[in-house]
């Protein structure tokens, strides 16, 4: 009560101020001719940019504004401005507070302009306003509380602005308000319960804001409400059952909030409801049977909730749209679905529906969208669906459907989208498919389909996506493919297709993905592929493609993924490949490419995976590869690369998965720069001719978990770094300085051996088969140390090696021993060279492969 009193006092105070202001202007206006309302309008004009001069005839030399564009006056002797309509005049700028001077205004429309800034609070002075349209501008700030002063206001429409703040509580004063729409702004706060005092309210539109809190249960007092749109906000809590009292409601949209709890059964009382959207909330429980009472409903969308239970058997017979997708519905699809004879769209996808697809769908003659994908449906695709002449989109993907694709589908003249992937469909694809259907998307991936690719899929030249991968198709790519000018995705991977990739592929200039991998294709890659300028992915691995990689590949400036591995390709890599600047993944492995790599390969700065293994590449590894700063994996093993490892490879700072240079002819020492590869987990350098020591910088290989240096000419001690602690012994064998021969002997032989050797010429390492680690030093120098602490396995592999400096003592870094790096090492010296030779003789009798297998948990390469 007190508050109300204060408010009215405030209002009186403002009124006095305003009257004074008006009086002042009146005095001034007399001297200049234009009346006061004209002056207020001029002030409004002065605040605006009027790019197209819509307000060109607003002149201060006029007596009244009544002839001005957008201005309407009463026809009295002393006319007043009652209407201002500036809709769609490209006006921008601030709305002047002078608007508050137009106190006779009943109609104000500023829609579709670029008004910025606040809605001036002075608008509250226009107390006769009945219509206020501000939609599609850039008004910001809150809706002024003074809006509540406009007691005549019937329509307030301000959607699509940048309004913030909460809804003014004063809105409850607006007893005549019929339409209140502020959708698509950035308003926050709750829905004030006061809004429920607006007894005339018919349309409440708050969609697409940031309004939170619960829907006030007082909403049920709005008996005249016909439309309630609050979608895309942050509402939480239950849907109030009182909504069932809004008995005139025709359109209810609460989608895209965070509403919880069940759908109240009272919704079923809304006899006039036509559209009901509760999608994208967190509703649970089952769909109430009472929804069937909504006998006028034409659209129901409960998608993207957590609804459980079965699909109700009864819905309005006027229903056109029924969306229940992305819930947790179970049970089978009721046969009564066929009663929805007017339905055009039914989407039950992404639930747990079981059973077969009811043939009753065929009674819904107007059905053009049927989505049942990602359920657990079984049985065959009913032939009866072929009678749905309007069927445009059919998505049955990701179910357990069996049997053939119905023969009748090939006569469906509206079919644009036929998605049947991830099922167990078998039989041949109907060969006339596409003759009558203007397909845009066909995806049968991952079924058991046999036979050939239908030749007319592209007859209507609409096809954009074609995926037939992971089936058992045979035969060639049909000629009709050349009509597929719109084709973007062309995936035939994982079939038994043969023949060539026709040169007509060059006509398909919109292609962005070609997947032919894992088939039996032969012939060469047509140079025309270079015309497919949009191509991002070219995957043809695992075929029998021959000849060279065409140099036209360099025209594919969008190419991000090129995989031609496991083919019979020969020749050099065309140097033009360095024009494919977007390349991220390049796999040329398992072919017969020869000669050196283009030096500029290092300019492919987006490369993440570079796989060149198992070819016949020769020459040096280009130092430029070191600039591939995004590279995470480098596979170059199994070629004949020679020369030294470029130190620049140490700059591959993103390299993480692996660097594999094994089985090449690399010489020289391992560059110490490789120690900078702090992310690298796998470093494979075995079977080269690398010499020198393992760099001590390898301390920097912090992430290393696998390493192989075997079969090189490396010498010297292992660096004293923790990373070698758990290394597989296979990682080091095959380096002459570390090894003469390797045998398996019973432990007692070792002990015997130890006792017979006295001269410092040879050392012996013992690897245990269990841990793959060399075992502890038993003897150093001349003195024999009893292996007291050791628990020996029954067998051990013994490796004999020459000490680096004959005659002097083999030195093991103390840190190495202390850290249990090679935790168990036998070092002792042979008394007589002859004895060594004798022992060596025994060794040479043994099968080396057997030894290796026994020695390593994972066999050495």
């Amino acid at each position, binding site marked *: 009560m007190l508050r109300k009193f204060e408010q009215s006092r405030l209002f009186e105070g403002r009124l006095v101020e305003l009257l004074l202001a008006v009086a002042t202007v009146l005095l001034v206006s007399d001297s200049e001719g234009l009346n006061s309302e004209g002056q207020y309008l001029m002030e409004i004009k002065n605040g605006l940019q009027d790019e197209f001069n819509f307000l060109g005839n607003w002149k201060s030399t006029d007596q009244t504004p009544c002839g001005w564009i957008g201005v309407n006056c009463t026809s009295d002797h002393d006319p007043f401005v009652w209407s201002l309509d500036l809709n769609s005049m490209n006006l921008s700028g601030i709305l002047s507070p002078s608007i508050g001077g137009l106190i006779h205004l009943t109609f104000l429309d500023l829609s579709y302009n670029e008004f910025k800034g606040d809605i001036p609070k002075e608008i509250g002075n226009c107390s006769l306003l009945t219509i206020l349209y501000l939609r599609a501008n850039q008004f910001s700030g809150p809706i002024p509380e003074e809006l509540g002063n406009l007691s005549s206001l019937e329509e307030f429409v301000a959607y699509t602005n940048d309004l913030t703040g909460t809804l003014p509580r004063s809105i409850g004063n607006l007893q005549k308000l019929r339409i209140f729409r502020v959708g698509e702004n950035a308003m926050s706060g709750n829905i004030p319960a006061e809004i429920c005092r607006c007894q005339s309210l018919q349309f409440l539109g708050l969609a697409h804001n940031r309004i939170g809190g619960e829907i006030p249960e007082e909403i049920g007092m709005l008996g005249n409400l016909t439309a309630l749109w609050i979608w895309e906000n942050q509402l939480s809590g239950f849907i109030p059952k009182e909504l069932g009292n809004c008995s005139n409601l025709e359109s209810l949209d609460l989608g895209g909030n965070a509403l919880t709890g069940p759908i109240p059964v009272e919704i079923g009382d809304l006899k006039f409801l*036509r*559209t009901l959207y509760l999608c994208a909330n967190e509703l649970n429980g089952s769909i109430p049977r009472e929804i069937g009472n909504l006998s006028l409903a034409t659209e129901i969308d409960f998608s993207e909730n957590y609804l459980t239970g079965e699909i109700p058997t009864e819905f309005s017979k006027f229903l056109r749209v029924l969306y229940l997708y992305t819930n947790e519905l179970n049970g089978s699809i009721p046969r009564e679905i066929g009663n929805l004879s007017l339905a055009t769209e039914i989407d039950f996808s992404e639930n747990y529906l079981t059973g077969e697809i009811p043939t009753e769908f065929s009674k819904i003659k107007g059905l053009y969208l049927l989505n049942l994908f990602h359920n657990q449906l079984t049985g065959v695709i009913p032939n009866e669906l072929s009678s749905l002449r309007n069927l445009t989109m059919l998505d049955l993907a990701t179910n357990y459907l069996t049997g053939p694709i119905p023969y009748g589908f090939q006569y469906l003249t509206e079919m644009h989208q036929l998605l049947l992937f991830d099922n167990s469909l078998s039989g041949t694809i109907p060969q006339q498919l596409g003759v009558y259907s203007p397909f845009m998307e066909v995806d049968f991936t991952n079924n058991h389909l046999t036979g050939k690719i239908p030749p007319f899929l592209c007859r209507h030249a609409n096809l954009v996506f074609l995926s037939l991968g992971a089936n058992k198709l045979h035969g060639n790519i049909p000629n009709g493919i050349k009509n597929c000018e719109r084709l973007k995705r062309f995936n035939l991977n994982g079939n038994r297709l043969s023949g060539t990739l026709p040169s007509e592929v060059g006509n398909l200039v919109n292609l962005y993905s070609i997947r032919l991998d894992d088939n039996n294709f032969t012939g060469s890659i047509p140079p025309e592929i270079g015309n497919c300028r949009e191509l991002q992915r070219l995957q043809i691995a695992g075929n029998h493609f021959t000849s060279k990689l065409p140099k036209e590949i360099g025209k594919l400036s969008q190419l991000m993924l090129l995989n031609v591995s496991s083919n019979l390709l020969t020749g050099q890599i065309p140097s033009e490949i360095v024009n494919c600047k977007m390349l991220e993944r390049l796999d040329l492995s398992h072919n017969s490419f020869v000669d050196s790599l283009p030096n500029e390969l290092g300019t492919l700065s987006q490369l993440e995976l570079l796989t060149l293994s198992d070819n016949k590449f020769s020459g040096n590894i280009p130092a430029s590869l070191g600039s591939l700063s995004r590279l995470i994996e480098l596979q170059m093993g199994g070629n004949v690369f020679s020369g030294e490892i470029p130190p620049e490879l140490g700059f591959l700072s993103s390299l993480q998965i692996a660097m594999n240079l094994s089985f090449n002819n690399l010489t020289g020492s391992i560059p110490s720069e490789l120690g900078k590869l702090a*992310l690298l987990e796998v470093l494979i350098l075995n079977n080269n001719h690398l010499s020198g020591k393992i760099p001590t910088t390898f301390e920097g290989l912090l992430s290393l978990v696998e390493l192989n240096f075997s079969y090189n000419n490396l010498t010297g001690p292992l660096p004293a770094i923790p990373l070698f602690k758990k290394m597989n012994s296979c990682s080091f064998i095959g380096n002459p300085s570390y090894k003469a021969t390797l045998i398996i002997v019973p432990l007692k032989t070792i002990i015997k051996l130890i006792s017979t050797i006295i001269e410092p010429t040879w050392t012996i390492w013992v690897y245990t088969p269990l841990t793959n680690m060399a075992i502890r030093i038993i003897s150093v120098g001349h003195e024999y140390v009893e292996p007291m602490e050791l628990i020996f396995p029954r067998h051990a592999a013994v490796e004999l090696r020459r000490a680096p400096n004959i005659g002097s003592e083999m030195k093991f870094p103390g840190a190495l021993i202390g850290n249990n790096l090679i935790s168990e090492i036998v070092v002792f010296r042979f008394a007589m060279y002859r004895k060594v030779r004798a022992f060596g003789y025994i060794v040479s009798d043994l099968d080396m492969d057997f030894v290796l297998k026994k020695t390593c948990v994972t066999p050495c390469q």
Partner: protein
Amino acid sequence: MNFLAPLLMAIPSPVHVVLVVTLLSTLAPTSANVEGDALYALRRAVKDPENVLESWDPTLVDPCTWFHVTCDGDNRVTRLDLGNAKLSGSLVPELGKLERLQYLELYMNNLVGSIPEEVGGLKSLVSLDLYHNNLTGSIPASLSKLPNLKFLRLNSNRLSGRIPRQLTKLGNLKILDVSNNDLCGTIPTSGSFAKLSEESFMNNSRLEGPELMGFVRYDTGGCK
């Protein structure tokens, strides 16, 4: 729904709403694609000036053909390689849904905000590389629920608060780097932390050094 909103607002007639919603059903990402949705949530939460996420099409059945994403044979995401990709914005809790993710490589970007608690749900995670970003907040204790974690590199951010003591339970931890942050409190020394060197914790001016066992309480005040 957001991107169609202007359209919907401009055409208030309910008949048109049907059309819009129809369009939606073909465009909206499928939620059975949980991992794709999770990654798409990340895409929406970051700015991507170099369009490295351009191939992230939420309408595909799974994210395995997206660039910078690697999947295993079951089409489950195992790697996310977005190091040094000029991304800005924040991490999203949805990332926690990538159950088989082993490598989360988001280092050297301009990510802000905190490390979501949900990262602790990445049961297969081997490597969490968030170094050189602008992350704030504390190191979630939930990371201690990652039994396979080997590499935890959070250095050069603006992380604050204590180093969660629970992290000492990470039995496979090989590398921990939390240097160059604003961490405080003491450094745990037990469990997997026993073998870590001082370098892992450098340049955290408020860190008090290794915790003292025995009579001195671990939990001294003034660290938030």
